[in-house]
């Protein structure tokens, strides 16, 4: 049982991050805090992808003369990292749009609290 937890500790941290992010999105009333929750949720998935690329006794994916290129087991899997570069960029763009919308909301309603906003809209 202990092995099950210790052997998968990277995934457990991912799950904890994912839960924190979902908690922030669902239960926080302040829109900035919701956005932070969203960022944590996205980062948890990025961390998941990075952790599936890792390998024991392997090095980073930069060509090293000591490890011939035909022995791919010596290198980490580079694909998840490259995918996550794109995903991080997407995350940054999402945050940019989110903060732009928050500025527009604040200029129109002068509050970022969800309950006050719903009252003012109705």
């Amino acid at each position, binding site marked *: 049982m202990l092995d099950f937890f210790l052997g998968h500790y990277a995934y457990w941290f991912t799950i904890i991050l994912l839960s924190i992010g979902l908690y922030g999105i669902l239960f926080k009333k302040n829109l900035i805090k919701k956005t932070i929750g969203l960022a944590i*949720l996205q980062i948890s998935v990025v961390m*998941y992808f990075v952790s*599936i690329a890792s390998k024991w006794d392997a090095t980073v994916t930069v060509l090293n003369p000591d490890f011939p290129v035909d022995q791919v087991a010596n290198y980490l899997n580079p694909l998840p990292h490259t*995918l996550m570069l*794109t995903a991080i960029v997407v995350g940054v*763009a999402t945050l940019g749009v989110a903060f732009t*919308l928050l500025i527009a909301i604040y200029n129109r309603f002068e509050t970022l609290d969800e309950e006050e906003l719903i009252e003012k809209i109705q």
Partner: protein
Amino acid sequence: MIESHLPAYIALTFVLFSVLIPVFGLWKSELSQPLAVLGAGIAAGFSLFGFFDVINDGAIRYYFGGWEPPVGIEFVYDGLSAFFVLVINAVAFFVLIHSHHISKREFPGKEMPYYSLAMLMLLGFNGMILTGDLFNLYVFLEIASLAGYALIAIGDKPAPYAAFRYLIIGTAGGTLYLLGVGYMYTVTGTLNIIDMAAMLPMLYESNAVFAALILMIVGIGVKAALFPMHGWLPDSYTYASSSSTALVAPIGTKVAAYILFRIILWLFGIEITDAVAPISYIVGVLACIGILYGSIMAIAQSEMKRMLAYSSVSQIGYIIMGLSLANPWGFAGALLHVLNHAVMKACLFMISGQLRLKEGHSDMSRFDDSYRKKYPWTMASFTIAAISMIGLPPLAGFFSKWYLVLETIDNSNWLFLVVILISSLLNAVYFFRVLEKVYMMDPSKGQKKPKDGEYSEPKASMMIPTSILAISLIVIGFANALIVGVLLNIFPF
């Protein structure tokens, strides 16, 4: 020569015009809208050409940079993607023509960024449909979504808040989808849909595959406004500018439905989808609840755009129901409904935009019989679209429901049958009350005489697209056997 590059041309047209519009728009802002129409028109032309090409000669697989999958990224232009690309580009073309006067009135001076964003959003949607790579699909999903949030944020005072809610829930959905892609990647080692589909039969009843399926359906279900995940839709469609709504509403949820089709029928296949739990049936039941919920909420609304938004929740249910039936006629009915609903919803949202432009509101409780004198053609188009929405023959809406009904009887799926029939009645309730206000006044009851109204139809640039879409509903209705014959060939097994 041109055929083999066609999928890339469709996507590149939108890239090109999303750059051209700022360049020319800075020089002359009035050029933005014609350029956007031109871009969508060229893409629609390519899609029409490509659709017939695919029907005759089979699917086109376009490898980017000549790298063959699974190493490279590919665009897969098969029957299903050709059909969806044709529908969304044709509808977008008419909606963009229509948006000329609305954009001048509702967001003056912002035409250039608006149309550039519209092109980017269409790029995202086309890319989602065309791509054959699951991660590439995520990237296009986010391009389309980010542009869509910005388009929805242009509008009434609460529009940014509606867009923000959509952003939070939509990005969370996209992230869950990405996590599902991660699971699939760890078990198969590939991201290419065709490649992965070939490996999945070996992973029958794998927990990781099951979890990935759930995550993907939930993530994409948010975008498709599948029943419990529809919360963002009514506010977004109501508060966004009329032209944004007319652009996003007929296209956005359909593309998400396309991804569900692609994932459930092509990638996993119906056997693996139902291997651990009856997922397709659960999705169908959710669709049923959505159909009834959307119809009932639509009856409770007096604002026309909000009513149409709830009606969208209900109509997307039909499409997903056809998917959950997972047999040829249900599939053809669902795809025909994609076409019908895209045309009907575009037509109805364009009419609500016209009324907002002319009357300054689209509150149905303030409609009266002067409208039939002031806007005879608008109201005639509204009537055709509304009757098609209810599903009366010979209009298009009848036939998609007809095929779905036939298939539910065939499967002895009485729950779905009852839901379709009840929902048609509910549709009749919420559309006929508008028609009653506009067309019917009982003179014997001593009501005041019909109000006189000057003939004041909106400009031809708005009337022509609306009328063409309304007439095409009749044409689709009569040509349904032809269309369904083509659609049946697309069915994967």
